[in-house]
């Protein structure tokens, strides 16, 4: 959701082209000051609240119609956060400082103006809602594209901001669809999501109306969104809550999501085409129970993996590859057990994944990756097909490393020593790994895996 915390008033902007330039500059400055103080407060209070910043800055830029800004937002790559006392969670944000008064103001069609009917200024949420409504009514995503491309062209927003806007609109749109779908009593499986999700929706997405914003896909944005949601999650968490948020559903878009009906609450599962097809094959009435059970199991698994990634127990890539393998295994088992393959013609199998899936898998990986400090090695981990042990190996190594850490903690406590020094251990292990690689004791990819595990701790 937008702006779950912080002073809402800071985000109310008068979004009009008509305010004098000077006034807008002055207001921008004062807002910036307010923001900075709010930010420092917030940095102390919460891990990350990046997307709020984005909202604000983006809207600020919209508001300052005449001016363009070089909003040099540098959404900080979050460091491995889950040793909170040690990492620096403050983001470095530089609010726009330059105003180019030579730029033209925005021109918008009336329905897309940034003002309410009664003339009162719009909040950020209003804007997003407005756009979403428009898209829904016209059933045309092009509405958004039009608006955003104008903004971009005029240099009023950056790509970052455009993406943020896109995600928020997507979310709002999804809400709309859901509400309307509910109203119309669309047939489909009931949502079997029993966990409370706080502010989350558990709706699927409607592919036809929305495609993943791949073009402007931006890792940083995702990170912020996810961070925001996690902040919520930590506040709202109960035993059953999944780490799922509405934003999730839109971050990746839905390519195979054709198969997800909004009521299913299955948006998480869209990345498991084989599992999906399995579910689809259980479409008779007597299969309902089984279907629901499967869904619950799968979701629990996914949540578990997410949780592990979140808490740094495994790296994002490991999480992804684990889930990928899971799906592949489902395909195999299904084939064996049901005696039929669920593979559709456009699903090319391990060698050539359907482009969309690839993107979405990448999106998922990238999304998870952004919850953490970006690992130095940005090349993709070996594909499972080339080294069938790779995921198993990572898990084994991870398990071993965890045992060591646990033992160190306990051991040092028993002996009354200070807490072991993780960074020293990490350095030592990195050195050893390099030495082992050099001597041919371990392969380079194994060494990288190990280093990666350590740096994710």
């Amino acid at each position, binding site marked *: 959701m937008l702006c779950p915390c912080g002073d809402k008033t800071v985000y109310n902007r008068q979004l009009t082209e008509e305010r004098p330039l000077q006034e807008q500059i002055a207001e921008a400055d004062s807002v910036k000051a307010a923001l900075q103080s709010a930010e420092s407060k917030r940095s102390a209070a919460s891990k990350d609240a990046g997307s709020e910043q984005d909202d604000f800055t983006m809207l600020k830029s919209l508001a300052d119609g005449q001016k363009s800004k070089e909003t040099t937002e540098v959404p900080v790559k979050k460091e491995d956060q889950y040793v909170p006392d040690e990492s620096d969670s403050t983001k470095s944000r530089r609010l726009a400082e330059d105003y180019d008064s030579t730029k033209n103001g925005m021109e918008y069609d009336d329905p897309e103006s940034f003002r309410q009917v009664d003339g009162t200024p719009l909040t950020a949420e209003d804007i997003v809602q407005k756009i979403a409504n428009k898209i829904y009514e016209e059933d045309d995503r092009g509405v958004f594209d039009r608006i955003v491309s104008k903004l971009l062209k005029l240099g009023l927003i950056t790509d970052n901001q455009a993406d943020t806007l896109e995600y928020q609109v997507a979310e709002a749109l999804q809400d709309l669809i859901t509400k309307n779908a509910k109203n119309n009593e669309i047939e489909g499986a009931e949502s079997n999501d029993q966990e409370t999700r706080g502010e989350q929706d558990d709706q699927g997405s409607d592919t036809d109306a929305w495609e993943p914003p791949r073009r402007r896909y931006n890792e940083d944005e995702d990170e912020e969104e996810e961070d925001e949601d996690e902040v919520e999650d930590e506040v709202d968490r109960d035993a059953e809550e999944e780490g799922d948020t509405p934003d999730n559903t839109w971050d990746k878009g839905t390519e195979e999501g054709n198969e997800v009906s909004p009521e299913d609450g299955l948006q998480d599962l869209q990345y498991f085409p084989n599992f999906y097809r399995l579910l689809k094959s259980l479409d008779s009435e007597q299969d309902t129970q089984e279907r629901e059970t499967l869904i619950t199991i799968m979701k629990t698994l996914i949540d578990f993996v997410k949780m592990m990634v979140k808490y740094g127990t495994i790296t994002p890539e490991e999480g992804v590859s684990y889930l990928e393998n899971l799906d592949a295994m489902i395909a195999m088992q299904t084939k064996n057990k049901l005696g039929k393959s669920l593979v559709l013609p456009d699903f090319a199998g391990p060698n050539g994944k359907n482009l969309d899936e690839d993107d979405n898998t990448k999106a998922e990986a990238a999304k998870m990756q952004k919850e953490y400090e970006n690992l130095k090695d940005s090349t993709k981990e070996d594909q499972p097909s080339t080294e069938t*042990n790779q995921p198993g*190996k990572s898990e*084994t*190594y991870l*398990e*071993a*490393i965890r*045992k*060591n850490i646990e*033992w160190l903690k306990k*051991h040092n406590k028993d002996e009354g020593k200070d807490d072991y020094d993780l960074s020293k*251990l990490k350095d*030592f*292990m990195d050195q*050893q790994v390099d030495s*082992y690689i050099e*001597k*041919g*004791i*371990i392969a380079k990819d*194994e060494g990288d895996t*190990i280093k990666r595990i350590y740096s994710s701790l």
Partner: protein
Amino acid sequence: ASGKRGRELRKALVSVWLQCPTITRIYTIGESFEGRELLVLEMSDNPGTHEPGEPEFKYIANMHGNEAVGRELLIYLAQYLCNQYQQGNETIIDLIHNTRIHLMPSMNPDGFEKAASQPGEIKDWFVGRSNAQGVDLNRNFPDLDRIIYINEREGGANNHLLQNMKKAVDENTKLAPETKSVIHWIMDIPFVLSANLHGGDVVANYPYDETRTGSTHEYSASPDDVMFKSLARAYSMYNPVMSDPQRPPCRKNDDDSSFKDGITNGGAWYSVPGGMQDFNYLSSNCFEITLELSCDKFPNEDTLKNYWDQNRNSLVNYIEQVHRGVKGFVRDLQGNPISNATVSVEGIDHDMTTAKDGDYWRLLAPGNYKVAASAPGYLTVIKKVAVPYSPATRVDFELESLMERKEEEREELMDWWKMMSETLNF
């Protein structure tokens, strides 16, 4: 250059190392013929270092590539020692703190790959036994038995028979790379006790392997026959299959008449020239026995747990045997270590030598012994020791060099002369 199973071996060792990095280290002693690393996992409280006075121990498995049980057992053992250490098992903690344990799960990875690659359940009795060159590694070591038997008759050194070892080894074209690597390893590290793991039968076999007369079966006792029997029993007694007196032979027509209490003298069972076991004993200070651990050379994976259960206690207990007999340091009067000093025991025609820090270990069965330390240029010192079953008895030696003694004598003489002259002048 390693197959899937090679990677799994490595993965297993690396996992142990990752779990217990402060007490383990992986190293390689060289490459097989086909370029596979001969990996060793070392376990001690100070991996990578020889601590003066701390005995060195090794297990080597799978020198016959198709004898696979030992290979798996050493992996289990590594995991076990690491886990137990972390769980606070006092025995294991002491063992690791006081011993440097080296585990080589596969001395013949090339052969293993070949054996393992055979399709189907039943593995051929011979495929993968030898290395990639077709060399049986357990016949490939320099035959020192032959030399010792000559020396027994005609006099000569009773140990450390391979003179100028490094040169002889490197120039010997008949030696397989695996053999060479192990020989270098033996020369570099002052191993005290060792076992090599095989399959195809179930028994603990001790030196000598080669018969004195060249006949096919003949009890061929070494000077340490008593101790070797004790060592072999220390293994077999904890293995319920090995020590079962009612155990039928692995194959109907097998001759296991030499087996007793689960142990056998090598020559009494059948003559083996050029084996690694005897090479250890006759080229270095290391006592090695040969453990045959399974009737089936390459059994199904699902049987491995049973083999582990059968052998776990034996494997640990055998390592503990390294803490027996006498041990200590040989130094000069200034406290400097004397390396390569000779430590001999009256009545046992097999001498030890001290390592670089002047440290030595002499495995002995319980009894009373006279232990002597000597070195060129020094005066020999003899000490009487009563040796229990365990732990090892600490016996240090301070050797006076000949020069020092001459100097002393000269001073004594001077003193006497002075006294005499004073008396005479009185």
